[in-house]
C-alpha cells in the first residue's frame, strides 16, 4: 500500500509548483483481509427523549385512532405534525384540531433498501401524505400498503389503515400504512 500522490502543475506568482494530492487508499482486499491493523469497537447509544407537549399529545391521539393538528390563529394555518409554536409567526399555537385520517400523496418513492443500505426482500412504497383537514401542503412521512408500486401516483387519495386498538401504543406506527381510497 504505497502512499499515492497525484498532481498537476499550478503556479503562484509565476513560480510553477507541483501540487500534491496525498492519500493512502485502502483496497477492498486490504480492507477484507485486514493486512493492516484496524481497531474495532461497538457502541449502543441509548436515549430516552422527552417528547414534550406537542408530540405527547399527538402520540396519544394516534393511540386513540386520531390524527391531531394544531392551529395558529394569526396565519390561520392548521399544522401537522403538531408543534407548540408557529414557526412562521413565532408565537404559541392556539388550539388543537382533529384532522381526518385521509390524505393526498404529495410525492412517493419505491424503496429497495434498508437503512443500512442492505437490499429489502420486498420493495416498500414510502410517501409524503398531505393530511386532509390540515392546511394545503401539510404532509407527514409514512408508507403505503395494499397497492402495486407501479400504480402509485402523485395526487392519489389515501386512507390510514390503523393497527387494531389493542396493538396501538402511541406511536407513528399505530398507523400500519396508508392505502388508496379508490378501487385499484
Amino acid at each position, binding site marked *: 500500500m504505497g502512499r499515492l500522490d497525484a498532481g498537476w502543475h499550478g503556479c503562484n506568482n509565476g513560480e510553477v509548483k507541483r501540487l500534491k494530492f496525498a492519500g493512502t487508499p485502502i483496497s477492498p482486499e486490504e480492507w477484507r483481509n485486514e493486512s493492516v491493523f484496524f481497531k474495532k469497537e461497538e457502541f449502543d447509544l441509548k436515549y430516552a*427523549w422527552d417528547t414534550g407537549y406537542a408530540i405527547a399529545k399527538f402520540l396519544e391521539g394516534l393511540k386513540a385512532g386520531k390524527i391531531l393538528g394544531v392551529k395558529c390563529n394569526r396565519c390561520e394555518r392548521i399544522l401537522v405534525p403538531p408543534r407548540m409554536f408557529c414557526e412562521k409567526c413565532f408565537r404559541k399555537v392556539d388550539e388543537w384540531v382533529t384532522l381526518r385520517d385521509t390524505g393526498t400523496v404529495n410525492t412517493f418513492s419505491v424503496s429497495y433498501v434498508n437503512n443500512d443500505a442492505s437490499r429489502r426482500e420486498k420493495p416498500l412504497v414510502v410517501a409524503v401524505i398531505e393530511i386532509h383537514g390540515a392546511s394545503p401542503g401539510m404532509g407527514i412521512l409514512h408508507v403505503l400498503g395494499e397497492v402495486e408500486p407501479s400504480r402509485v401516483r402523485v395526487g392519489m387519495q389515501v386512507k390510514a389503515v390503523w393497527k387494531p386498538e389493542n396493538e396501538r401504543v402511541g406511536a407513528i406506527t399505530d398507523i400500519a400504512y396508508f392505502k388508496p381510497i379508490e378501487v385499484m
Partner: protein
Amino acid sequence: MTLFRHRMLETGKEMAFEAARMALDSAGLERKDVDAVVLGSAPDAFDGFHMKGEQLLDGAGGFRKPYTRVFVGGGTGVFVPIAAWWHVASGLADIVLAVGEEKMSPLQPHPQYAFWTIFDQFLERPLGVTLLWIFALEMRRYMHVYNVSEEDIALVAVKNKANALDHPAAQLPARITVEDVLKSEPICAPVKRLDVSPTSDGAAAVVLASEELAKKLTDTPVWITGVGWNVDTTYWTNRDLCYPEYLEKAARMAYKMAHITNPRKEIDFAEVYDPFDYKELHHMEGLLLAGKGEAPKLTREGVTQRDGDLPINPSGGLLGVGNPIAAAGVMKVAEVFWQLRGEAGKRQVKKPVNRGLAQAWGDLMQVGTVVIMER
C-alpha cells in the same frame, strides 16, 4: 486536498493535515502565519468521534491556536470558507486556514446507516427511514411538478463523471451513457445507483487572507465577494420539495453582497452541489441560474458543459470526484479558485472566467450555503 477515496488509511486528523499542508504550500505559508483555524465536518457518527472537531484539531493546524468547527450538514463544506470569511472581515484574524474533512468508512456495515439518525426520532425513525427516501421523494416531486424526465436527469451524471476524468483526486471518474444510468440498479425509485455520489474519505482546505496580506502573498488573489446561507423549517414534509426556497434566499444574500442583480449573466460558471444528479438541476434553479424547471433544458443543450455558456461542475462534482461531505464542499471552493486563476489544467473551462460560485446543500432538504468568488 487529498485524494477522495472509498476508504483511506489516514485517520481524519491525518487527512486534514495532508489537505491543510497542501493549501499552505500553495499559498507559500507556514502554520505559524495562521491566526485562526476553521474546520468543517458533518455527522460525528461517520468518523466515530463525539466532538469530532476536537479530535481533528491538530490535523487542521489548530494546535495551540484559536480553532472552531462549524457544521450545517451537507452544506458544511461551503460554510467553512464563509465562517473563515467573517473571521477575516471582522478584523480579528488576517490569515485563516479553512479545512473540510470527512471519513465515512469507519461506520459498519455501511456509512448510510448514520443517516437514519438525522430523522425525527419520534415520528420518522420508527418507519425505518433512510436518507435515500428523502432524495427519492424530492426527485419525484421535482420531476412531477416540472415534467422532467429521468433521461434529462441522467445527463448530469454522464457530464459530471466525464468531467472527473480530468481530476487527479477523483474517486469515480467514468465515461458512461444515459442508458447506463437508466439501467443501473434501482435503489429507491426514481433514484438509481448511478444517480448517486459515492461515500468517501477525504479532506480539502483553503487559505483566506485579509485584503492587505493577500496582495502581498500573490499577484493573482481570488476575492470572496459574496457569502450567503439559509436554513429552512425542520418540517420538510410541510414544504413543496419541488423548489429550494432556502437556497434562493441564501443566494440572494450572497448576490446582494456581491452587487449581482442578474446572476444568469453575471456568474460565469458554478460548482453546485450534486450528491444526486437531479440536485444539480434543482440547485441551478434555486440559485436563479435557470428558471424553475428550466435547468434540464440547459443541460440538454450543452450549456452546462465545460465548453458551454454556463459551465456547471467542471471539477466533476460529487458524482465524479467523490463525496466526503464537508471536504466535497471545500473541493468545490478550491475548484472555483483554480478555475479563476486558470490553473485547472485539463479541467479549465473554455470561456474566460472572472466570477464563479460554489454552493452546497444540507440537512433535511433545508440548508443552502453560497460563496461568490472573483478574480
